[in-house]
């Protein structure tokens, strides 16, 4: 049987522009905000400021990378903030007990173990991820308090250790946290976009039943996503600990929602099955630059809240409107 191509429209440039807009709605929103802030305050685009914003977004950003995996696989992770506090406290405590070379792998192992527990509960036991991670948010906080006895953790000899390199070091004039963030984003971006595992993550999030029918071991994929998330959290905790060389038990508190906001702002759907690492990075940067931009303009923090609200909705609106090709929702 001979095959005919489907009826097509000609090479309409309008349609191509439309498709591009649909794909890159969030990027365009990002550019618009940057232009807006630059107009409002000329310091905004200074290299120092840009680097500063990215550096302070790096911790949030690294966590958002992992949560992107979890969200694409169709689940949520509300425990990242609490888990990050745990990692930070643990690595600081072990630093003085074991030395940095042992403390770091030990902390990663402990964080990944908790990630594995969550992954087991959500992946293998199929418990609802929102509630499991909400429960873990509380439980891990309890664990952290038990571990630290509720005390702040500080590295005793702050000058005599190379531990500060992760948070405060620089290479080629670029702060190390930015380098870590960029490297991890590149690595995970490739994993998600190019490897069989990444493909499975999309399939499981897009339609878990169909994925199972295609021979994908769904539980294993979900489990792995939580491990990725825990790995990112551990990395974030490392940067955090190294940056301030000491910490409170609540250092990551409340970050789970910021992280989620960044991931969603990047266009990942909470229903699972869509989103990319690149867009998450954009989402992280938008949040970082909004905060910074408003701070530079000198608005009260609560004005920032309101502006962030408006910007989140406008950005996501632009994104979905571009995808569906019309501004207003078609629902009656």
């Amino acid at each position, binding site marked *: 049987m001979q095959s005919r191509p489907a009826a097509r429209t000609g090479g309409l440039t309008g349609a191509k522009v439309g498709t591009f807009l649909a794909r890159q709605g969030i990027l365009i929103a990002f550019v618009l905000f940057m232009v807006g802030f630059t107009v409002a305050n000329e310091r905004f685009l200074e290299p120092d400021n840009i680097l500063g914003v990215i550096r*302070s977004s790096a911790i949030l950003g690294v966590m958002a990378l992992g949560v992107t995996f979890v969200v694409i696989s169709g689940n949520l992770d509300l425990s990242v903030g609490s888990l990050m506090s745990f990692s930070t406290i643990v690595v600081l405590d072990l630093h003085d007990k074991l030395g940095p070379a042992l403390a770091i792998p030990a902390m990663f192992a402990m964080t990944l173990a908790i990630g594995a527990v969550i992954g087991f509960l959500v992946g293998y036991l199929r418990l609802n991820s929102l509630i499991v991670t909400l429960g873990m948010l509380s439980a891990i*906080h309890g664990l952290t308090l038990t571990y630290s006895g509720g005390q702040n953790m500080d590295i005793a000899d702050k000058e005599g250790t190379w531990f500060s390199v992760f948070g405060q070091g620089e290479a080629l004039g670029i702060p190390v946290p930015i380098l870590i963030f960029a490297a991890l984003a590149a690595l995970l971006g490739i994993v998600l976009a190019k490897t069989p595992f990444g493909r499975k993550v999309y399939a499981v999030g897009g339609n878990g039943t169909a994925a199972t029918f295609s021979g994908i071991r769904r539980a294993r994929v979900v489990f792995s996503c939580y491990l990725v998330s825990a790995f990112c959290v551990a990395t974030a905790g490392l940067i955090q600990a190294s940056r*301030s060389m000491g910490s409170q038990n609540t250092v990551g508190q409340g970050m789970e929602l910021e992280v989620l906001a960044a991931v969603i702002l990047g266009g990942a759907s909470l229903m699972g099955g869509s989103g990319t690492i690149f867009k998450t990075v954009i989402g992280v940067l938008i949040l970082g630059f909004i905060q910074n931009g408003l701070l530079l303009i000198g608005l009260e923090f609560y004005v920032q809240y309101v502006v962030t609200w408006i910007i989140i909705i406008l950005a996501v609106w632009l994104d979905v409107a571009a995808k569906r090709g019309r501004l207003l929702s078609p629902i009656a």
Partner: protein
Amino acid sequence: QEYRIGITQNNVGVDSYQTTYEKAFIAAAEANDMVETVVLDAGGDVARQIAQMEDLIQQEVDAIIIWPTNGEAVIPAVRKAFQADIPVIVTNSNIAKQGFDFVASFSGPDNITQGARSAEIMCDRFKEMGIEDEAQIVQISGQPGYTTAIERAKGFEDRLPEVCPNVTLMETQPGDWNREKSQQVMEAFLVKYDDIDGVYAGDDNMGVGALNAAKAAGRAGDIVFVGATNFAVGYEAMANGDYWGSIYQSPVDDAEAALQTAIDVLEGKDVPFLNYFDTPKITQENMGDFSKPVF
């Protein structure tokens, strides 16, 4: 005669001051054969604190110590205890005046005075440096909405113009009692203002966060850092010569004072209504007089 005393704290996990307070309180109670305690934590939530007050009343304890999450919202709950003939002792930060009738005593630091003292430390330092007429400063306040944060900021802002009328407070942003948050706020300040001579932080945790930011930008040497509630990190930074001054406040004293006040009330002793314990100034110059904080 054994006293059963209930305490409802503000938010224990949030920082090591409150944790140390709780530990010290329990230790003091255990050391005293005469008392048994029920220790509750409101987790920063007024509704939960009010529920805990009701529970303590329902359990018929002999006295209630409350560390209010909101100095006014708890007044009706305090009145309930009063009506049930249970004496209430307020600790750490006071409740509002309408509630004074229902309260046996207050025990804690004077946050307004603390703010004022921080302003004095800052001003004195500027005078030593001879920049009291041109200095520009920023403030990083505590968690928005909390009495302690509000009172310290107020004390500072009221006192500063009295002692150093020409110092300008350029901007205030909250650091949420959080070192990392404060570090971010300070980073933005550093970009925004080329000339910052001083930073007042609502506690040393935030102060050290700001110091870290300034160090990273290579500008720590130009800035006078003054905080409050001298934490161990602040004390160390002071010892290193990075951090100028703070207010020495011990959670152990705070907790022991509260428990003692409660016992005194129960024993029918005459206690003053406002039981402030002293919170002296601490700076690089006099820090030798103080031991390093344990929290």
